[in-house]
């Protein structure tokens, strides 16, 4: 499943977004791609949200990938070393293909 993230991954918006995907994060073996193509800003709340999601998904024996990451956001992910926790794809289709292959 591909989920498009909002333009602002900041304190003001993260909580609402998390509430919206809680059910998905609790499914069995979720395969989720976060599409970051619209993301323009991210703060600590946003990076912690990503960490929370990957933690939840791993607990459910799932996979989470990031796709279409803008270079400005990539700088922040690399600076905070979060990029190492995700597989990052150039496109949604590539991500879906890879994660579907993992699901067998």
């Amino acid at each position, binding site marked *: 499943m591909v989920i498009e993230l909002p333009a602002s991954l900041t304190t003001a918006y993260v909580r609402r977004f998390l509430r919206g995907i809680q059910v998905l994060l609790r499914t069995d073996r979720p395969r989720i791609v976060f599409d970051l193509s619209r993301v323009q800003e991210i703060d600590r709340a946003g990076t912690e949200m990503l960490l929370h999601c990957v933690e939840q998904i791993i607990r459910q024996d799932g996979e989470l990938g990031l796709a279409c990451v803008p270079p400005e956001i990539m700088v*922040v992910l690399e600076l*905070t070393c979060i990029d190492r926790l995700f597989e990052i794809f150039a496109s949604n289709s590539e991500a879906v293909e890879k994660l579907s292959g993992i699901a067998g």
Partner: protein
Amino acid sequence: MRVGAIVVLGGSASIERPSPFAAVAVQGEETQERLGGTPIAALDILGQSAVHRTIAYLQDCGLQPITLVVAEGMPVPANLSGYSTVPMPANETDAIWPVMGRVFDKYVQAGTETILLIRLGAYVEFDFSDLLQFHRDNMQPVTRLVDSAGPLDFWMLDALHCAAAGSDSLHETLARVKDSIAYYDQATYVNRLSSASDVRHLVVDAFSSRHAVRPSGREVKPGIWLDDNANVHSRARVAGPVYVGRDTRVQATALLARFSSVERSCNIGCGTVVADSSILANTHLGSWLDVSHAVIFGSKVAHLRHNVTVDIQDDRLLRRRVSVFRRFLPNFPGMREN
């Protein structure tokens, strides 16, 4: 023969034609030749700015007088004497020319025969004696330095000849003699200092001994330079070549590597990795960060591989440091935040 120098730093160079100065795009704070609103030539790189190194070299060559024309609010070289400064308004286009013209006229009246006019701009290494001889041999009123990328804002002027050109302004004088310019292409090193990428090139070239710049401070181990009062925790790791600036602190388990430079008054947090990067003065880097292929100035990261500059708003990640003195005594004489 009396040779003087006028060095120009900051301000807005005219981009109207026919300005003999190379055009400088002005589009907000991050313009060509500037980082964080400050000319790159005024920023400390490996402990000293390009303007400091240039003036020091001109002094070593015996030039007198030397005048630094500097936009208001711009930093001037610390710990360097023997030159005078003349302010110019920071935000007025073309303010540069009348100010330079007045200095030029004073030099002529004082009997200075040859004037080296430099706009920083580029960091250039050249043999002054060779340039002077070239200028004399060509018997043109103006000699201009060039390299493979084009003309540089380094000019040698025959003072009397230019003064006799009969115009009221230096700008017009140079325009009038533009067909009588000799071009000198023997500079030994040129770095145009027009972007963060050029900052990294200057640092890497210095560590690789491709030019005369050497880091300030002491080389405590091969390839590792520590400046005065630099404090590197015993459990931090430094894999040279690396420079650590004056009054900078590197915390435990931090790692500095691969041609990195950390300028004065910085703090590198625990566990943070700095590789192939330059951290400019007065920057606080938080803990457990990974800085690679970047130039950091204040809260901004110029990432050279992703080719973007990002402003990080989270103070816990990185921020600009303000000195304690500055916070409490903003008008303390001699204190300058740069």
